[in-house]
């Protein structure tokens, strides 16, 4: 047997060099600090903050969480500390960690998105911006930005003008054709796409005859959604030139590598961090071990390498 050479795990995500393709997903890894006890933050490629908004948001009433077969629903309601408290309370920690931090953010109007982008642009500790477009447009009857290509493009155009940092657009899976959305964001100036955000789902408590979540519906995540996420990543990767971050039900290194074969340059670990707070690090380590064991010298050689 030949000795196993250490594989090259680095990838380049829209200009940001990552030590490996494993990122953590927004809303599932706090602001990084929360996991410092369980994950060596310098063992993963990058981490993404909880979604930020201009003002602090308190979020929805409880229950906010419910388990479903192979997955979970959440209706946190985008609770976050707001951009000011983020800068004063969370950024100092980011400075102490030698791993790119990506700020996920949202707004209720296009102007709010643009303002958030320009505020985040000023923070040196923020390596890139991830736009969550799965939010209702309060000015247009609450239609979700991320389900309409024109709205999505307007958000991206406005943010593009407001920042020079790499701009990742996070796509919603609750659409008829995710490729249309992806292309609209590419044309509007996105540097990368991440997908998928949560699907919309619902759970009912039969005995109480009520929805389980106080918000009635919630975002569906976890292993159950993986087949949908994998399909969408594959569709989008074939259709756009941008690097893609695969997200959705990734629980282990096999899942992560499957997303790379489908066309992802990097992946994000979401719900898995709730079940195993050390998941992201473990996935990065196991990916490397798989590459070594299978004689794959460079993880980049797997990107889009699916044979169809």
């Amino acid at each position, binding site marked *: 047997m030949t000795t196993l050479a250490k594989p090259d795990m680095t990838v380049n995500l829209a200009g940001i060099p990552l030590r490996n393709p494993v990122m953590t997903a927004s809303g599932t890894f706090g602001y990084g600090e*929360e996991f410092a006890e369980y994950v060596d933050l310098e063992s993963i490629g990058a981490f993404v903050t909880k979604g930020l908004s201009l003002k602090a948001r308190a979020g929805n009433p409880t229950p906010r969480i419910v388990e479903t077969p192979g997955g979970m629903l959440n209706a946190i309601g985008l609770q976050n500390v707001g951009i000011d408290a983020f800068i004063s309370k969370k950024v100092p920690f980011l400075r102490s960690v030698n791993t790119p931090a990506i700020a996920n953010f949202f707004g209720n109007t296009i102007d709010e998105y643009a303002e958030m982008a320009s505020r985040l642009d000023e923070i040196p500790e923020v390596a890139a911006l991830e736009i969550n477009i799965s939010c209702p447009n309060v000015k247009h009857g609450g239609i979700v930005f991320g389900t309409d290509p024109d709205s999505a493009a307007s958000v991206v155009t406005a943010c593009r003008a407001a920042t020079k940092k790499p701009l990742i657009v996070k796509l919603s899976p609750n659409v008829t054709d995710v490729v249309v959305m992806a292309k609209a964001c590419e044309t509007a100036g996105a540097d990368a796409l991440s997908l998928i955000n949560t699907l919309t789902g619902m759970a009912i408590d039969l005995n109480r005859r009520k929805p389980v979540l106080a918000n009635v519906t919630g975002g569906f995540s976890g292993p159950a959604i993986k087949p949908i996420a994998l399909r969408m990543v594959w569709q989008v990767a074939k259709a756009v030139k941008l690097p893609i971050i695969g997200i959705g039900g990734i629980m282990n290194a096999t899942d992560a590598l499957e997303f790379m074969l489908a066309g992802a340059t990097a992946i994000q670990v979401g719900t898995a961090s709730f079940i195993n707070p050390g998941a992201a690090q473990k996935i990065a380590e196991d990916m490397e071990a798989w590459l070594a064991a299978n004689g794959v010298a460079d993880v980049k050689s797997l990107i889009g390498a699916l044979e169809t």
Partner: protein
Amino acid sequence: MQFTSLILSNVEVSPGYWRMRMTAPPECASAHPGQFIMVRVNGAIDPLLRRPFGIFDLGTYTPAQSGGVSQPYLEMLYRVVGKGTAMLSTLHENDLLDLLAPLGKGFELRTADEEKLIVGGGVGLAPLYLLAKELVKNSKVRLFAGGRTRDDILCITEFERLGVECYTATEDGSLGECGLVTEALLRRLDQLQGKAAIYACGPHGMLNAVANIAATRNIPCQVSLEGYMACGVGACLGCVAPGHSHSSETPDFRCVCTEGPVFESGELKWRD
């Protein structure tokens, strides 16, 4: 911290209530009463999420093999209510469990000069035993244990062995007084001369009643809350509870898994 624990025993102590003892690393031996653990029921995806449980007891045992060096263990007392707890109840000695522990903020033990009144409803007693064990070192401790039927009144003997004076009440009168445990608590408070402090864990309605009693009589009161949890480490924001000044206009949510599960009752929002 995250660790793999070996089950030492798992026994049904009352119909539908189980007590599980499992090995713990030395770092857990100093867990505070009121802290909790998150249990991964099995390695598969069903159930997907960990389940939160209080720490019922801590101690040490001497394994047969390891040359007589004593090892820490922790215990939980749990009620079978759904899928996860049903699966837990099928586990045996020598099975392994993946745990996060100890998590959250436990009870404040306070000063010795107060009478400590512990109020537990059903399986809400679980985290109160370890608390009582600490409190009896310095204070007079009384337990008010309530439940629907006699089967829901747990481990009273254990509390009595600590020297705790126990009052029990059941809704159907099958053990102790017939009625709510808060009535016994109120009677005791009426008799009380010196200072007192309340510690409570149980169904939300009971905690609400206890919190109101404490507020009216101006007695310090800590409650341990439950909340649907995904992560247990402050990341998902699923477990929050409305804080004292919460309203839909000026929301004020507290994170149960990191700021709690134990709160001063005055910190939280209650119904009158």
